[in-house]
């Protein structure tokens, strides 16, 4: 039996909220499915990109926020490039992630958000990417200490990593991150 979808007034504003936060109007999507056929990670997602767009249109916030889909988006932009309606689907994925973060919702694939947070923290400290620091921070946050150890050691031996951070531009970046946070709060 088909279950009726409950659409309340609050939920119906979800596509407006997405448009306000990221500038993309999801209502242009007419469900052709081209985004999902081109997506290299569609087989890993619980909702196909098309379905995620539909859920946003219907205002099903819980369905959207409980999905793994946007967290498994590789930002390859194949969907956006294929969309006949010019909907930037990859940007919508980012927007939903940002909205969830602001509302302090727990993502279904926590590693992805943890990496993004470590990345920004890394920039705040060092100004430029310091890979050793990033990997260390990520391991502390995820607890996956042995993951990629073998490969990491090989890369280290090849001299692929800078052993120490350089702090070039660190002060400028720290100030920018601070001002960005302030502007986003206001």
């Amino acid at each position, binding site marked *: 039996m088909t279950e009726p979808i409950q659409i309340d007034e609050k939920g119906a504003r979800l596509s407006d909220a997405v448009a306000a936060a990221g500038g993309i109007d999801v209502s242009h999507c007419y469900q052709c499915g081209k985004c999902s056929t081109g997506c290299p990670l569609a087989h890993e997602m619980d909702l196909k990109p098309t379905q995620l767009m539909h859920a946003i249109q219907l205002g099903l916030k819980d369905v959207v926020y409980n999905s793994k889909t946007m967290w498994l988006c590789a930002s390859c932009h194949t969907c956006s490039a294929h969309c006949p309606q010019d909907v930037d689907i990859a940007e919508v994925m980012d927007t939903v992630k940002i909205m969830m973060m602001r509302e302090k919702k727990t993502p279904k694939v926590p590693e992805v958000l943890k990496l993004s947070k470590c990345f920004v923290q890394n920039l705040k400290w060092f100004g430029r990417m310091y890979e050793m620091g990033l990997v260390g921070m990520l391991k502390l946050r995820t607890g996956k200490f042995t993951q990629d150890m073998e490969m990491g050691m090989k890369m280290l031996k090849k001299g692929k990593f800078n052993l120490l951070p350089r702090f070039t531009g660190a002060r400028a*970046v720290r100030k920018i991150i601070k001002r960005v946070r302030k502007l986003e709060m206001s």
Partner: protein
Amino acid sequence: MKYAYYPGCSLHSTAREFDKSFRAVCKILGVELVEIENWVCCGAAGAHGVSKLLATALPMTSLALLAEMGMDEVIVPCAECFNKLKTAQHSVKADKKLRRDVVKAIHKDCNEEAKVIHPLTIFAEEPLISKIPTLVKRDLSGLKVVSYYGCLLTRPPKITQFDIAENPVSMDKVLKAIGITSLDWSHKTICCGGSFALSKPDLAVNLSHKIIEDAKAVGADAIAAACPMCHANLDTRQCDMEKAFGTHPQMPILYITQLMGYSFGLSPEELLLDKHLTDAESILKKVTKPGEAALSVANEVK
């Protein structure tokens, strides 16, 4: 030819060989590079999932420094940085409020008109594309290579405006110009899963494996790349592919500038060919024809 140069974080660390080979090739081609002093990270794969304002402000900081240098053209070999710089320019043009906020965040004006150029674009166009064959010193005609462009150079096409998004050819043109046989294949612009290299490596291994498998299927000896994320995924994950799929692909992954430099006669040390985890040096040594043969390539093109 003189350009400002934005190397980005990877070219100063994990992709040092890309930086060194790119600089060496530019020197031979007569392209002068002036590195932007005090450039900052472009935000790469981390910032855009956290804050659009931050992801736009960071590239704009470096582009503002470009304006301070009195230059308006910047060359960006890293596909990730190239994409992020272009995206930031597009975003501030499309969204006036975002532009105002960026100015408030970086305390500098937005430089959305600067020309952000990927080296492949200038290598594959006149005058350099005609000059390249005349500089060839090693005959690499026995080498069969596929060009891997990945996502970040080609998409979104309206923003990157790089080559032909569905079937880019600039790297193939450059390969042909240095006498290498470039093969056609179907994975030119398919994603390698670079953004999951650290957070969900199993996804990246799976996607990268498909790319290498296709390169093998068409008979390629090596893959040419122009993106440090793609390179890292394809090169360093081959041991993981062995664990997941049973066989080690043994597929050399080289930066396009390393292949160019090698054909121009530079030594493996000058191109840091030993930096890769999957051996890339032996194949080059194996196919290089000894003696005078190299000159024939230059003559043939003339």
